[in-house]
């Protein structure tokens, strides 16, 4: 008996981790590979069963060069002068970064190749964005998704940080605020989407008098591409700011007080304390937080789906919505292909972020 117990105890290392590993393996990784296969097929129905016909890269071709590529990648036009400027700056920045790496102390071929890949992909993405955001261009679902992710995350972080900094002060009623600010995250995303649709409705929504007062009675956000996108982004920011807020709040609360007290004694002012003590201490948390939120943000679907169904035209359609639309008519191959492109995009972003930003953040402390 003792031997069995001892053996079981020695197996602890495996017992602790195996269940999690196995579950994720079987339910996340394996379906992923199967889904890769599905993206290379087309679904049709036979008598009482379904048939997956292998079509090779046809689904991907449709998205990248074929009948759907304008919908997916966007309508490319000549960039505006600002667009050229942005592109130029990005290229210069990457060039400088690469040169610094080569000139710097530790140089590895793998590292260089990785950095070149990152630089190229990001440059291509910026180029696509710049072309599609130009007036005569139009962003495809890739472009719209990127807009959502970066704009939303920026505002969520800023607002979350601001609120967190205000909420850790010792003011009466701060507990009330902390609970209230947590609420939007608790509502099911579908529910949030419908709530915002109600709120944003031009006549039925509560802001109708506001539109009239502003003289906007005759127009509507819904038939304007950027208006619709802003509506979606407002909803998304409303819903996910609590996530940033609560994590940053915890991080701010757990700071060491001695440092700050010492700084105050030394005569540092607000801004200096924030910049030199607070910010570096929450930087690691922030980067993890941003990473997690970024991964989730790429999958945005409920708000565009419910608010505008991806309209007007295709202005608010995210990649996930694009995939969902195809999946609803049972074009599962096409849907899986888009999902895979999204996966690649997110993995690329996450890994770049982790490798480049996070390690630098750790170095700062």
């Amino acid at each position, binding site marked *: 008996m003792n031997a069995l117990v001892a053996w079981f105890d020695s197996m602890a290392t*495996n017992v602790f981790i195996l269940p999690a590993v196995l579950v994720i393996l079987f339910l996340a990784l394996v379906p992923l590979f199967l889904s890769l296969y599905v993206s290379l097929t*087309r679904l049709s*129905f*036979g008598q009482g*069963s379904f048939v997956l016909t292998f079509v090779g890269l046809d689904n991907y071709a449709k998205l990248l060069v074929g*009948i759907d590529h304008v919908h997916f990648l966007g309508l490319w036009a000549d960039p505006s002068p600002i667009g050229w400027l942005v592109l130029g700056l990005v290229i210069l920045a990457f060039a400088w970064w690469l040169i610094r790496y080569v000139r710097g102390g530790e140089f590895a071929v793998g590292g260089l190749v990785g950095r070149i890949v990152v630089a190229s992909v990001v440059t291509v993405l910026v180029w696509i964005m710049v072309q599609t955001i130009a007036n005569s261009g139009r962003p495809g679902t890739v472009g719209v998704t990127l807009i959502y992710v970066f704009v939303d995350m920026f505002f969520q972080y800023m607002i979350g940080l601001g609120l967190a900094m205000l909420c850790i002060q010792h003011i009466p009623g701060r507990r009330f605020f902390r609970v209230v600010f947590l609420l939007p995250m608790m509502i099911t995303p579908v529910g949030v989407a419908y709530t915002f649709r109600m709120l944003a409705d*031009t006549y039925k929504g509560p802001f109708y008098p506001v539109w009239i007062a502003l003289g906007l009675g005759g127009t509507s956000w819904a038939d304007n591409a950027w208006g619709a996108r802003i509506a979606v982004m407002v909803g998304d920011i409303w819903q996910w700011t609590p996530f940033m807020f609560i994590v940053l709040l915890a991080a701010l609360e757990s700071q060491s007080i001695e440092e700050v007290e010492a700084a105050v004694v030394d005569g540092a002012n607000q801004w200096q304390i924030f910049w030199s003590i607070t910010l570096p201490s929450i930087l690691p948390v922030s980067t993890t937080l941003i990473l997690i939120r970024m991964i989730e943000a790429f999958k945005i679907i409920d708000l565009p789906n419910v608010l505008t169904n991806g309209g007007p*035209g*295709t202005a608010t359609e995210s990649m996930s919505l694009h995939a969902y639309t195809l999946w609803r008519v*049972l074009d599962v191959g096409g849907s899986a292909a888009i999902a895979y492109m999204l996966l690649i995009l997110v993995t690329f972003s996450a890994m770049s972020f982790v490798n480049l930003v996070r390690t630098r953040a750790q170095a700062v402390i």
Partner: protein
Amino acid sequence: MKRLITLSSLVMIAALLLAACAPAAAPTAPPPVQVIVTQPPVVQTVVVPQTVVAPQTVVAQQTVVVPATAVPVGTQFKGITVNVLTFTGPQIAEPLQRRAPDFERLTGAKINVIVVPFSDLYQKILTDHAAGTNSYDAYVLSPQWMADFVGAGVLEDLTARINADKDLQWDDVAPFFRNFSANYGGKLYTVPLDGDFEMVYYRKDILTKDGVKPPETWDDYLAIAKQYQGKPLAPGGKPIYGSCISKKRAAQGFQMFWSIVGPFLQSQGTKEGSFFDTTSMKPLVMNAGMARALDIYKESTKYGPPDELNLDVGDTRSLFDTGRCVLSLDWGDIGTLSVDPANAVPDVINNVGSIIDPGTKQVVDPTNRVTGALVNCDSTTCPNAVNGVNHAPYAAFGGWSAAINKDAKPDVKNAAYAFFSYVSQPAQSSVDVTIGRTGFNPYRLSHFANLGPWLHSGMNQAMAQDYLGAIQASLQSPNMILDMRVPQTQYYQQVALDQALAQFLAGEITRDQAMKQINDAWESKTNELGRDKQLAAYQGSLSITK
């Protein structure tokens, strides 16, 4: 590392042993996935039954047919539960849920109405059946989906049952629904429960005050909308909108559009079809009629609410019922909703006129509808014209209909059929169609005979006659448009057509680009699925015989 292996192997073997000892949980071997590695396109030839549609003379099947009884009595289906799948109500689901207990009392069968979001109904049915799960015994679905479902073996052939069922009063069902909607390839697969087609509604009080006649053509429609757009006629003196048409993407916009383009494309009767050429399966898109219709569609936006591009049919309906539109295009719901004080403002109640879908005085040359020009209406080009106007009432969706899962148990099938027959019978359906909330619109000739239930629902005599008159005119039109039903109809309409329309309205593409986009998308899908196969299906849906 070795420990890892040993442990995982042990775990798996233990699981295996457990499974072997436990009672077999796996259901009967599900149909295997056939993975065919071929090079597309796969051209399959399908033999289409060459029968002429004549419901009275269809050959009976080998299924066990329940002898038709009057209102079923007693406990003939005791102990049987039927799972009926439809979308979340209250429309459509509510009358089913309401009548289920009555039916249970009469026959002992328990009817379970299961609902899913509307946009997911189609794929739920298909995947449930194709994967062999079969958790639903019957469905209330859109007959458009018959092309996919019959091909996939989902639907039970109801021809024999219907023929043997006297109480259903099949002849009472309007010819369009009897001969086309419930019919696919010569066989009957559904029991109609609802008559879906579009009409135009107008504010009678506003139009009669100015002596304006209700619109007969789409040009009239635009003229009226333009005339009234912005006038302070809405409650509270607010500006009124000329026309409210649902144009939201991935909603009902594409069906509204087809009401506009339909009369340009179809003039020779339902059998002519309005989507593809009946011999070559080429889309009827690159023609002058489509161009004109797109212009009309876009122009109507100018005389409507500013966010019309984001309005689905619920929004336009509520706009009309709260007195903010002069004209609207909708199914039959506005009629019954507009007399309900919980839904409509006093200005609107009993002031709503209905008229058959506006038509056109010009049609696309019937000899070349694929790329033809517009020609004037005369006795050959428009044999069904009324006052020189070719009307083509569009039976969008086709009317929610009941169908039965082919793989359900035989006694469950019988019970399901009896329930649907019960709901469809005149005694029950004539009440349901008068209640706006049910979502059921008239489809039987007897629904018009008795004005009583209509008056009871709140309509006054004039409105009831007007409303029913418009419906009757539509139902009796020999040129009603049958909604598309070919395999992957969902793609043709909801992805290809709908997206192009949304982009065109939003100004992302021009009119000609939109036409080309629709044409290319449809052609590519037709080629992908096999042109002959699609052609056969299309012809089958129109009951075209060679």
